[in-house]
């Protein structure tokens, strides 16, 4: 067993796919940062709001005023450094840190896809993605190489496989498969789209999309792994992600996934792509033919094994990735309802959830009483997200507690009147209205003040 692992870790393969991925990933990230800035989201999400929702344990990560722009500039520049393989290690480190910091600043903007990017950039930090077709290699800053350890490419494929398969497994629930929820709600609202629009109102279309989506997510990795079905699989990838791009506001994610699945293609493909790239941009760096079996063998010399620490670290990281999404099993209650263990688990497009929250703050000493106008403290987007996620509600309640204490109230009691509708069910009361949220504290423990969900969703 140990021997096999050792042998696997010492297997080398063509470095082209990794170099190609580095280039494509860097460029995509650069353009996604540009898009973020172009949409005015830097100020809208991070600078304008007076209050930010933070991740448990990361409360210290806050926007830094006008310097937040600098953070984005660093993030954009480091993405380019990654793309061109210029001071790659530094570039990817800066990118990972700045990007992750940006994501941690406010969980209102949480997206599975951004989490994916953080994970990938963390892994890329340990991969020799700059040994080929990079400024570093050209300047002899690193040992040029036509080959890299095989696991350095495989790990990216595994990460991709986790995203797809976990997302597929998450779709195996009664709402998705047997009620076509939430697509039955979302699709009809796109009825104004040309050509396909008028189809989107049919019930059967929502079912077809749901089932196809689940089967696609579960099966696509296998189609891509198997050479005879690879091209077909990739065509499906393109169709699927282009469709989701048209139907839903999911930003750059479709492109990230389309480009990432190219990792499954042969090194020859990546060589050609890199050659084409050299030609177009007149880069004289020669991308020679694929390494011969001989060069691969010479690299496989046990004396050139990569540092042991890296594979161990990546192995542990992968184990965490495999187990972490299942932490919801440790919580009682319906996952979709309580959302305990929902984030960071590749649950994508699964819920249409909306809520109404009205907070009341009362002064224990005088009995003075105030209904909070949420728009005074939060943006529309924050109000929307806060209204159906318990950890948001709790964090905001504590903010209100402090705010009104400063206004002169004695130990204000914060209670909430909250109604939530999930996947087409009629809204019901969400939070125990008698609980003083100022006296409840965030932890990994189950939140007992969430009222029970009066329905069952079967499945994963």
């Amino acid at each position: 067993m140990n021997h096999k692992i050792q042998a696997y870790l010492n297997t080398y393969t063509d470095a082209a796919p990794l170099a190609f991925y580095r280039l494509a990933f860097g460029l995509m990230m650069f353009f996604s940062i540009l898009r973020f800035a172009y949409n005015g989201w830097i100020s809208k999400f991070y600078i304008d709001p007076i209050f930010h929702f933070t991740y448990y344990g990361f409360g210290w990560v806050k926007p830094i005023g006008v310097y937040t722009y600098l953070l984005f500039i660093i993030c954009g520049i480091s993405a380019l450094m990654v793309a061109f393989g210029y001071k790659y290690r530094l570039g990817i480190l800066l990118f990972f840190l700045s990007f992750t910091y940006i994501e941690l600043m406010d969980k209102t903007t949480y997206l599975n896809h951004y989490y994916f990017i953080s994970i990938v950039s963390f892994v890329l930090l340990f991969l020799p993605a700059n040994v080929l077709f990079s400024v570093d290699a050209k300047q002899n800053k690193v040992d040029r190489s036509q080959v890299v350890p095989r696991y350095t490419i495989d790990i990216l494929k595994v990460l991709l496989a986790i995203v797809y398969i976990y997302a597929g497994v998450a779709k195996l629930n009664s709402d998705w498969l047997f009620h076509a929820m939430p697509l039955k709600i979302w699709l009809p609202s796109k009825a104004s789209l040309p050509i396909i629009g008028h189809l989107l109102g049919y019930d059967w279309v929502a079912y077809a999309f749901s089932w196809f989506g689940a089967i696609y997510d579960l099966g696509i990795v296998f189609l891509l792994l198997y050479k005879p079905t690879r091209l077909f699989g990739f065509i499906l990838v393109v169709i699927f992600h282009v469709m989701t791009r048209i139907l839903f506001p999911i930003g750059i994610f479709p492109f990230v996934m389309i480009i990432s699945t190219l990792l499954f293609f042969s090194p020859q493909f990546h060589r050609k792509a890199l050659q084409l790239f050299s030609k177009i941009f007149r880069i004289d760096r020669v991308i020679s033919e694929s390494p011969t079996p001989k060069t691969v063998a010479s690299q496989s010399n046990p004396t050139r094994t990569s540092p042991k620490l890296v594979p161990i670290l990546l192995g542990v990281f992968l184990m965490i990735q495999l187990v972490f999404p299942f932490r919801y099993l440790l919580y009682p209650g319906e996952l979709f309802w309580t959302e305990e263990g929902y984030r960071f688990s590749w649950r994508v497009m699964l819920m249409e959830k909306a809520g109404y929250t009205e907070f009341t703050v009362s002064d224990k000493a005088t009995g003075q009483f105030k209904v909070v106008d949420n728009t005074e403290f939060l943006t529309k987007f924050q109000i929307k997200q806060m209204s159906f996620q318990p950890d948001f509600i709790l964090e905001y309640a504590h903010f209100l507690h402090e705010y009104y204490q400063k206004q002169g109230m004695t130990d204000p009691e914060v209670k909430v009147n909250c109604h939530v509708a999930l996947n087409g069910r009629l809204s019901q009361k969400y939070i125990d209205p008698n609980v003083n949220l100022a006296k409840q504290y965030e932890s990994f423990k189950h939140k007992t003040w969430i009222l029970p969900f009066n329905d069952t969703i079967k499945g994963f």
Partner: protein
Amino acid sequence: MKHSLFLIAIVLVCFGCSSDNGNSKEQNTADYDTQAMLTSWADNLIIPAFSDYQEKTEALNTEASAFVANPTQTTLSELRNAWLAAYKTYQHVGIYDLGKATELHLLETANIYPTNATTIDANIASGDYNLGAQTQFASQGFPALDYLLYGLASTDEDILAFYTTHNNAANYKVYITDLTSKLNSIAEAIVADWEGTYRDSFISNSNAVTGSVNQTANNFVKNLEKDVRAPKVGIPAGVFSDGTLFTDKVEAFYKNDISKDLLIEAITASRDFFQGKTYGTNTSGPGLKAFLDAVDAEASGTSLSSIIVDQYAEILTTTSALDNSFSEQITTDNSKMLDTYDAIQQNVVYLKVDMISALGLTIDYVDGDGD
């Protein structure tokens, strides 16, 4: 290989819908013509309501002129009648806080209450004021007229004296006509805008976030939540003040016995808008109710639209149990006010949470993946 995979996919998909969706209506439910809905909103609801409001405010203005020219018990009564008629009609247009109405602060200048009697007195005493200023929002509109027509003294005779024998009678007369002519001129500007270019731009604005459907639906919900539920019922009944009651914060406090009528008018207006009812008739056209039915919105076997319509009926039932004077009601039996508040609140939740989400309306464009 490729073909067989595709076939498997198709078979699975068909299995998916046929086995679990045996009794579903195989009709296209969402070919809902939002363009037609917007057209109907503009032509059958909004423009007729504003036109009526314009006529009523014009009549109000005319009666005000007649009154100041000759302040008698008769002209006072006629002015009061015109005020009530216009005030009731206002309840129907308050939903449409769009375009010119927003620009000219229709809501803030027509119906902020309780009115600021101190400012009004000061304005009249000095004769120097600018009703366009934000600080003057609470000293104009229907609540200010309520004060000037009913609140200056306890008997009509004494009220008339302010416009006849009072030192400052001239200023009182000017102030009253300033208020009525402002109400009228804003109404005229709004109608002119709708009848001009605004109608077409309203109908053709289909943007997902800032579009007319989204904006109007959100305004409609906001109207019920912030302009009906809170000020007409919640605030006087102490909902927002830990039970401290405010008899003087009811709508039309000085006249005092019409708060209920105005509430009924506002609830009816809200319900009629939901149902897409042509203004002043019983004919229903396209609207949010039909839209909800078109997307098959239902909860535990009942259509969401009928749940909402039933809740409107429930609100009207609890409202009908109220005293004509809400000041009276909250002192004698506030629980009835709270019942009404709860009934309205329930529909706010149905509309704001269930309806908005069922219609796939957005409040803000942001990347999201449904979690």
